[in-house]
């Protein structure tokens, strides 16, 4: 079991709790009615949709279960998950499709 050291875990939990709260409180608490600049809003809109794909792409191409060797099976399950999520616009359909295809591929292999 890949155990995470307790000091690391608690630093992450506390750091994220404080940081996330600060982000949420930033405007509603401090800014009053002042508008935030357009350029900032424009970049904020694309952070999640940039970071999450950047995190996931290497995990799909070099999957952990095979020790990092590219695997058609894992790639296919990943493609099915993404396609289902994109087409239905629903996270759960995507996840269900991905889980199912991973299971089928395991059984077929």
């Amino acid at each position, binding site marked *: *079991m*890949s155990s*995470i050291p307790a000091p*690391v*875990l608690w*630093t*992450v*939990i506390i*750091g*994220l*709790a404080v940081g*996330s*709260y600060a*982000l*949420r*409180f*930033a*405007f*509603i*608490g401090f*800014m*009053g*009615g002042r508008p935030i600049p357009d350029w900032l*809003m*424009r*970049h*904020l*809109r*694309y*952070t*999640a*949709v*940039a*970071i999450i*794909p*950047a*995190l*996931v*792409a*290497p*995990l*799909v191409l070099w*999957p*952990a279960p095979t020790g990092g060797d590219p695997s058609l099976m894992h790639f296919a*399950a*990943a493609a099915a*998950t*993404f396609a*289902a*999520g994109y*087409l*239905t616009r*629903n*996270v*759960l359909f*995507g*996840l269900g499709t*991905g*889980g199912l295809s*991973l299971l089928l591929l395991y059984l077929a292999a």
Partner: protein
Amino acid sequence: MAITTTKSAFWKGFRDSAPFLFMASPFGFLFGVLAAEAGLIVPEAFAFSLAVFAGAAQFTALQLMQENAPLIIILISALAVNLRMAMYSASLTPYLGDAPMWQRALAAYFVVDQSYALSIVQFEAEPKMPLPQRMAYFFGTNGLITPAWVIATALGALVGTRIPESWGVDFVLPLAFLAMIGPMLRTPAHVAACFVAVAASLPASALPYNLGLIVAGIAGMVAGAQAELWLERQKAKSEAAK
């Protein structure tokens, strides 16, 4: 239907949020299962969900902790995923910004995707809604979701400790991220941000300390912002040509 009292505003928010239960509960449960697989005990997973209360950022932190990424990279990456909360906060300010400080301070904790999406639709549909009712509606949208998220995490962590290692759930976390991406791609600019981030992340993964994630994330973010500007200019041009 116009809302008549503060109490009924709360309950309308409560009812409107019910469909989101089917989203929040399974995702909270999955976070609990994966947290347990990563070695977190039930109180740790529970505290994580209660204190941070942001699904995508929690999954990001969990993945990076398992990769033994440096602390600072874990925090920057997970908070970057949460930057949209600042955008929600800014967008709610014209509607809730005049409430007493203690209410705003409490409301800030509850700014999540669901409460934001429901509230902004409600506030725009009924611009005459008085401030106390707006606040009540906003808190109402969290009346179900917040307990569901935290309880589902704890249940998931309880179940997760019983799942044998051999089941190979270590590919489930990437799948969870992939399922989240599809619904995020709402405009061509979102697609551009995603595409550039993916293209950059593969060579950048050779960088030490998981720095590649930050580099690729910034590249994607800038690509999205530039694509949005470009699309606006194209639209303005075609309108001017008419």
